[in-house]
């Protein structure tokens, strides 16, 4: 199937281009995943303790939420630019942190509120029952409260992962955008195939990551399947 685009009968997509570039596409996909998903991992590592602190000392939460909301409104491109002096420009090695650090901050703006909401969703009777069974604060937290918070935390991780995968491509404007490289490549040559192929690959990556997180949630909350749902 070839659809003729408005400009000069050039087809929107040339299928043979895909076959000729499988190696490049695989490399870019792997790099894209690294740039997009390391921030989610780092984000969780920071958000869980931070969320715990906010759930423990409630006065901490409003200012933290305020900072998270401001982070959420930052333009990704601007944040990438601000990191260039610290980590450098280009693709691979240290320069990857120019993309990874801002995306970690974005993921925090979604993850921290979700960790706090998740911990607050633990019913008081459950907490009291754990205490009555002789659980100390730490053990109650790890064995009772965090597992109950898992669905809300994963819901946040899903939103963060999908937007992170999509946002990596903005990094292409500073020369490191995983599959996004192909947007500018196609745009500068007036050639739609690379743009469409990389868009489709990014959407597929997002949907697959989302599916993996849903599966992880099922594995981590086996009781949810036995319940009423």
């Amino acid at each position, binding site marked *: 199937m070839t659809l003729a685009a408005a400009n000069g009968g050039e087809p929107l997509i040339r299928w043979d281009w895909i076959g000729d570039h499988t190696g490049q596409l695989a490399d870019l996909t792997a790099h894209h995943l690294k740039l997009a998903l390391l921030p989610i991992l780092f984000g969780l590592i920071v958000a869980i303790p931070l969320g715990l602190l906010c759930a423990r000392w409630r006065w901490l939460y409003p200012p933290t939420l305020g900072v998270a909301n401001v982070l959420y*409104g930052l*333009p990704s*491109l601007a944040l990438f630019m601000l990191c260039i002096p610290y980590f450098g420009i280009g693709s691979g090695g240290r320069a990857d942190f120019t993309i990874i650090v801002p995306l970690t901050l974005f993921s925090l703006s979604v993850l921290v509120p979700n960790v706090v909401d998740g911990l607050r969703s633990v019913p008081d009777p459950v907490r009291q029952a754990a205490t009555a069974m002789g659980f100390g604060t730490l053990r109650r937290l790890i064995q009772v409260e965090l597992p109950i918070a898992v669905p809300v935390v994963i819901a946040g991780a899903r939103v963060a992962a999908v937007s992170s995968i999509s946002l990596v*491509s903005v990094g292409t404007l500073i020369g490191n955008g995983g599959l996004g490289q192909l947007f500018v490549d196609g745009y500068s040559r007036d050639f739609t195939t690379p743009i469409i192929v*990389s868009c489709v690959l*990014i959407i597929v990556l997002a949907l697959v990551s989302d599916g993996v997180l849903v599966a992880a949630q099922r594995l981590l909350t086996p009781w949810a399947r036995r319940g009423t749902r």
Partner: protein
Amino acid sequence: MNLADQIRAAWTWLTASAHWSGGEGIPHRLLEHLGYSALALVIAALIALPLGALVGHTGRGGFAVVTVANFARAIPTLGLLLLVVTVTSIGLTPVIIPLIALATPPILVNTYEGVRGVDPDIKDAARGMGMTGTGILLKAEVPVAMPLILLGLRTAAIQVVATATIAAYAGIGGLGRYIVDGLARKDYPSVVGGSVLVVLLAVIVQLAFVGIRRAVVSRGLRN
């Protein structure tokens, strides 16, 4: 260049009087930015609010709506922008289409979830008072779902304001010009200054929604 230098350079840039007048000036760029953002948000709301309310009210097609919205969330905005520019040409359309695609999913999902989640007792009470389908939807379900609907609109608005910076890449104005041109000219103060303006705009949008919430949400629903 450390953070303090960056802040100082951005401050100098922001307070230079030359940057506050004319077609390249901050007020003009700000209005352009607000214009694209508002247009995209209004179109997205016109699509998503009725659709979300209808699906939430009837309960039919909910799975499809959530699936399509998740799918749309994954679309890379920059890719869609450059694709539309390549197929058509530089102008308003390639900027507005990706922004609509960005704004629609959060409004759609929140409206749907909000209306669907209304307590059945409230719907029964409305029916008992003699309301029919449309009346129940508009006078009971939508007002009760309003906090969630506003949250969806707020999320969409902030994302659109932050992302409208890419409008500059399609050759039209907006605050992104300072960022994209600054990048091209290696003019850091312009990049930082432009970013600060976008952040301020995002904060103002958040505050505006606090006000809207107070005006629109029924008193009984505000704790």
